[in-house]
């Protein structure tokens, strides 16, 4: 609680990072034991962190609840208030403990009122069955009042007083009639310390609608102009028979807490309740040199970027460049749409060729011409040293003199990169479809060869690797588009080319028909190639990451963090 001098008083979003990191470490070790030992991300024997990886921790909802509870306990003990009271105050101040302590010292009554614990002008007259928010907040007039146009200067006619009458529960013949549903057969009623009494089924419908429809965890009393907010014990009582809504309420509390912490991020995958803690990626400067890709503990597929809103792996490109590239693709989507089509014409015989695998080595069924799907050039050249499929010839754009040819050249240049980006993306999708085929192949192999189930796993591993590398390749095109011409870019493209060539070769291997005779050789080939591809991918990731750290990359446009 020392380093917050530089933050303004108004900045309630600020949170003491150092202390929070300690908290996370405490819980982190506990959570690792509960996690699936097969999940290599949390495996204690996991090899040392690579240069293109960041340090992070995956937290279950339970782990985050523990962090929340620690904060609540802390406030509860120093203020001498109940846990539920501390919780409301923390939620009100966006979980900024220091700020809360400061405000509470300054004016406890104002804090209690703003947090919906006590009401202005009307503090609870007597303690309510065992649960009463500690309140020294009597008769204070400070604190925000709900502004409402209902308090019109001159309400016409007699309506206004009638509304107010409703606020006191109408009691006819000693029978309670709920002022909301007008049901006089309801036997169970509930109220908070404001004594606004309503039947239990109305409370339930209200809380359910707030939690489910509005995703709201800050739930005020149903009475008009009552500013009390329902504490956890009250919600729990209302939802006693509705576990699903109670669970959702708790999830909302966790989300609120996570949203207030700069070092925490909720897993963006649908219906996932995991959180990732990545304290090193909190600062903007670190985002200009590292790409904080993390995976939540629920599934290895839940990969996302801690630094931006991309819900997938965008390594090796930093967030700012990834964002620019995605925006560019969105802006130019119309011009580039035709590229995404799945069919092209053979450049020799003009017959239509459909792409149905991830491999880019195409052979025309009719004339047997072998060519590259991406550049439509002859495939024979692609294996040689002058292979140039990934590199854009900048000459055209440099030579362009007039505006029209300049704009044509710039479109051509964009299409070169976009074409390759989109192609790897598409191939990736087709490779995912390949999974099903691969499974089948693996079953076949078990029958036709003496290979065991474990031994046929090499196919699945190869497909996984191809998908992973195509993701890297996609983003290298996004990056190359913005890289300034020169030696550094050429080295970058050399690495890109080597990876791309290796990936295409592996892609071709795993799509080739399986002959029982040569299955052992195929297995060796695929396994070797997979290892090689893996190595090439690491080289691209590592060298690019190093380049970011050394500030070696030069851009042809202004990039955030690079002035």
């Amino acid at each position, binding site marked *: 609680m020392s380093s917050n001098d530089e933050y303004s008083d108004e900045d309630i979003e600020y949170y003491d990072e150092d202390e929070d990191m300690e908290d996370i470490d405490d819980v982190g070790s506990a959570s690792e034991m509960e996690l699936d030992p097969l999940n290599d991300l949390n495996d204690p024997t996991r090899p040392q962190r690579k240069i293109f990886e960041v340090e992070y921790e995956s937290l279950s909802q339970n782990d985050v609840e523990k962090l929340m509870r620690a904060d609540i306990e802390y406030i509860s003990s120093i203020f001498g208030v109940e846990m539920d009271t501390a919780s409301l105050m923390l939620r009100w101040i966006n979980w900024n403990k220091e700020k809360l302590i400061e405000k509470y010292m300054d004016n406890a009554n104002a804090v209690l009122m703003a947090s919906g614990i006590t009401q202005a002008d009307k503090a609870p007259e007597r303690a309510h069955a065992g649960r009463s928010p500690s309140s020294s907040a009597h008769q204070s007039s400070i604190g925000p009042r709900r502004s409402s*146009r209902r308090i*019109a200067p001159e309400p*016409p*006619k007699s309506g206004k007083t009638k*509304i107010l009458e409703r606020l006191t529960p109408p009691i006819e013949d000693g029978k309670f009639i709920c002022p*909301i549903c007008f049901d006089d057969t309801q036997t169970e009623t509930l109220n908070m310390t404001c004594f606004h009494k309503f039947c239990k089924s109305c409370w339930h419908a*209200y809380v359910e*609608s707030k939690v489910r429809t509005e995703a709201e965890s800050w739930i005020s009393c*149903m009475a008009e102009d009552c500013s009390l907010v329902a504490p956890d014990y009250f919600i729990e009582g209302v939802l006693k028979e509705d576990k699903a809504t109670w669970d959702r309420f708790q999830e909302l509390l966790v989300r609120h807490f996570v949203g207030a912490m700069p070092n925490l991020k909720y897993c963006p995958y649908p219906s996932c309740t995991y959180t990732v803690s990545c304290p090193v990626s909190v600062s903007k400067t670190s985002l200009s040199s590292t790409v904080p890709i993390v995976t939540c503990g629920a599934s290895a597929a839940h990969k996302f970027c801690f630094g931006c809103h991309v819900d997938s792996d965008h390594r090796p490109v930093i967030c700012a460049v990834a964002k620019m590239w995605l925006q560019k693709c969105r802006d130019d989507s119309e011009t580039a749409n035709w590229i995404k089509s799945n069919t092209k014409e053979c450049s020799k015989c003009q017959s239509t060729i459909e792409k149905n695998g991830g491999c880019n080595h195409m052979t025309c069924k009719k004339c047997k011409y072998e060519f590259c799907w991406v550049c439509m050039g002859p495939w024979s050249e692609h294996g040689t040293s002058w292979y140039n499929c990934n590199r854009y010839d900048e000459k055209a754009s440099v030579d362009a003199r007039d505006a029209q040819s300049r704009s044509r050249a710039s479109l051509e240049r964009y299409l070169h990169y976009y074409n390759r980006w989109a192609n790897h993306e598409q191939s990736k999708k087709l490779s995912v479809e390949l999974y099903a085929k691969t499974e089948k192949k693996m079953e076949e192999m078990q029958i036709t060869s003496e290979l065991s189930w474990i031994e046929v796993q090499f196919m699945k591993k190869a497909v996984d690797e191809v998908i992973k590398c195509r993701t890297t390749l996609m983003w290298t095109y996004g990056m190359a588009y913005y890289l300034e011409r020169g030696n550094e870019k050429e080295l970058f493209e050399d690495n890109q080319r080597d990876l791309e060539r290796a990936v295409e070769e592996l892609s071709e291997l795993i799509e080739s028909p399986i002959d029982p005779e040569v299955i052992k050789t195929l297995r060796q080939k695929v396994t070797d190639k997979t290892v090689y591809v893996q190595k090439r991918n690491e080289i691209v990731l590592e060298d690019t990451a190093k380049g970011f750290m050394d500030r070696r990359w030069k851009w042809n446009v202004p990039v955030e963090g690079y002035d």
Partner: protein
Amino acid sequence: MDARLRRVNKEISDCKNDKSSNISIDLVDNSPFHLIGEFDGPEGTPYEGGHFKVDIIIPESYPFQPVKMKFITKVYHPNVSSASGAICLDILKDAWSPVLTLKSTLISLQSLLCSPEPRDPQDAEVAKHYMTSKSSFEETARYWTQAYAGGSGKEVRGKGRADGPRDEIAMAGLERAHVEKFQAMGFDRTKVIDVLRRLNYRGANVAQINDDKVVDELIKS
């Protein structure tokens, strides 16, 4: 019985039994979840003498989510869309409370007519008009009341009766002389009214907007 149905039925019958409030709620078809509310324009306002109809939809989760209301009768008011009748009122949004009723909400709408809130507008053009010249705004609001809400319109000076073809210039809250001036330059009358309304060519603003600016806009439109 379904709690929502019981509650709405009770609200409708309570409203029928209460003759003192001059608020009525009626069914549109046979469904109690689509209603029409009606009330008179408050006295001493430009809406006096008018009779206003409001479309009411009771959502599935009523009364835990706010009722949906919009004006059927056209109203010239900063917090009501002059085109769609949509209403900007806190209790129809986050300030809604389940203890509020259809009747109390309609009363709030009636109060809204008494006390416009131009800083939180639904119709920005009307709000600008209100801020620029309250008297001119009120004249237009009165004209609308007369034209659309059956108001007597006795206080509308020099605008002619609204029984005949409606006067577009009065409807837009503009001065006839201003419109005619730009019409004389050869621009289409409807276009002129449209542009002047958008520019809020009223009261003290007229001196601020030079003719070139208006002509510019007229050419662009």
